C-alpha cells in the first residue's frame, strides 16, 4: 500500500519522492513500517469532533513528509523525527479547523450553543441536562463542554454573577449576546488585511467562515483537493494574522 498516494494530497503537495535522500524501495519500506505509528498518533487526537479517517489521513500525509525530509546521515532516530512532524501536522489540522488559535472564540461559541441546548433539553427532560447529554446535543466532546462551561465562568461579569440564581438554566445566565459588536470589531481589523489577499483566497475564506461550508464542500466548489483547501486556508489565515498585527500597530 502506498500511503499518501491513496488520496490526492493536492496540487501543491510537497510529498514528492524526488526530495527524499532514500531510494524508492527504502522510502516505501520506511513509510509502510511506520504506518502503525501514524495511526496510533491519530488516535491520540480522537474525541475532538474529527473523524478518525480524517485524522489518519493527516497523520499519513505527515508521515510521508517526514520520510521525504528525513536525512539518515544526521543520526537522528526516524520514529522521534516522524512523531514530531505528525503531531505538528495534527495540531495544525485542528488549528486550521479553528480549534486552537481561535479557541477562545470557539469556546465562547460553544458556551452560547450550550445555552440553547440546555434550554431545549430542560424542556425535553424536565430537569437540567448532564454534560454527556449536552455533549451529544452540541456534537462536542464532554471535555470541550466542561471546558466551555469553565471558560464561561470567566466571561461573566461580576454584576451578572451577583444576580444569578442557581435554579436558572445556563441559557438564562448568558444574558444577551450582540454578535454585531464582534462583527464590527472583525470588520475593522480584518477589512484591510483581507483586501491584500488574492481573490481566490478571499473567496475560499468567505465560503468557509461566512457561508459555513466544510473544507470538502469548498474543495468540490473550487475543484481542488480537501488537503489543498486546508493548506490554502492555513496560509490565508496566517497572512490575515500578520495583516491584523500590522493594522493594530497602525491604529495604536
Amino acid at each position, binding site marked *: 500500500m502506498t500511503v499518501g498516494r491513496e488520496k490526492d494530497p493536492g496540487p501543491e503537495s510537497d510529498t514528492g519522492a524526488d526530495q527524499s535522500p532514500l531510494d524508492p524501495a527504502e522510502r516505501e519500506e520506511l513509510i509502510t513500517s511506520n504506518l502503525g*505509528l501514524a495511526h496510533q498518533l491519530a488516535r*491520540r487526537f480522537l474525541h475532538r469532533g474529527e473523524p478518525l479517517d480524517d485524522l489518519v489521513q493527516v497523520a499519513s500525509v505527515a508521515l510521508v513528509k517526514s520520510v521525504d525530509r528525513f536525512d539518515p546521515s544526521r543520526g537522528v532516530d526516524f*520514529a*522521534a523525527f516522524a512523531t514530531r512532524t505528525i503531531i505538528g501536522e495534527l495540531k495544525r489540522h485542528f488549528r486550521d479547523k479553528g480549534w*486552537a*488559535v481561535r479557541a477562545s472564540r470557539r469556546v465562547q461559541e460553544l458556551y452560547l450553543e450550550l445555552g440553547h441546548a440546555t434550554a431545549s433539553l430542560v424542556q425535553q427532560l424536565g430537569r437540567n441536562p448532564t454534560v454527556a447529554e449536552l455533549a451529544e446535543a452540541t456534537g462536542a466532546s464532554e471535555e470541550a463542554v466542561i471546558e466551555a462551561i*469553565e471558560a464561561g465562568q470567566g466571561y461573566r461579569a461580576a454584576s451578572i454573577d451577583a444576580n444569578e440564581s442557581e435554579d436558572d438554566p445556563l441559557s438564562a445566565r448568558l444574558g444577551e449576546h450582540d454578535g454585531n459588536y464582534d462583527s464590527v470589531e472583525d470588520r475593522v481589523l480584518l477589512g484591510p488585511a483581507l483586501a491584500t489577499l488574492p481573490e481566490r483566497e478571499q473567496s475560499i475564506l468567505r465560503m468557509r467562515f461566512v457561508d459555513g461550508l466544510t473544507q470538502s464542500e469548498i474543495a468540490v466548489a473550487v475543484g481542488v483537493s480537501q488537503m489543498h483547501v486546508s493548506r490554502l486556508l492555513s496560509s490565508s489565515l496566517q497572512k490575515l494574522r500578520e495583516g491584523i498585527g500590522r493594522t493594530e500597530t497602525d491604529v495604536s
Partner: protein
Amino acid sequence: MTDSMEKLAAGDRIELTFPARGDLIVLARLVTSAISARAGFDIEELEDLRLAVGELCLLTLQGHDSRYGDLRLELSVLDDAIGVQCTLEHAAPGGETQPDEDESAFLSQQILDALVDEHGRESQDGSVRTWLRKRRGVHDA
C-alpha cells in the same frame, strides 16, 4: 474582555489528586490548561502541555493495577517554565507487563520527546513518579 484571569507567578504550585482511572485523566488535562494559561503559556504551548500531561498520566499508570490507587499531579510554575510531576500512590503492581503496554509506553515517551523539553519516569517502593518540564516561549522552527 477576558483579561480578568488571575496570573500565576514563579513559585506558585498547584496539586490535584484523583482516583487513578484513565477516564479521569481529563481532569489533569483541564487543570493543566487552566494553570498553563495563567502562567503565560501561549495557545500552542498550552495545547502541547495538555497533550503531554495526558501522556504523562498514561505513562504513570503503565504496568500497575490502579484500582485502589490515586494519581497526584503537581504543577509548579517556574521562572521560564512549568514543571509537572505525576505520582501514582497506593496502587498494586499489575503483574506481567503486556506487549501492548510496552508499545503504549514507548509511544507516550515518543510523544513527550516531541512536546516537552525534559521528561522522566522512575518507580520506587510501589509508587511511580513521572515528570516533565516545558519552557515558555520556545518553539520549534
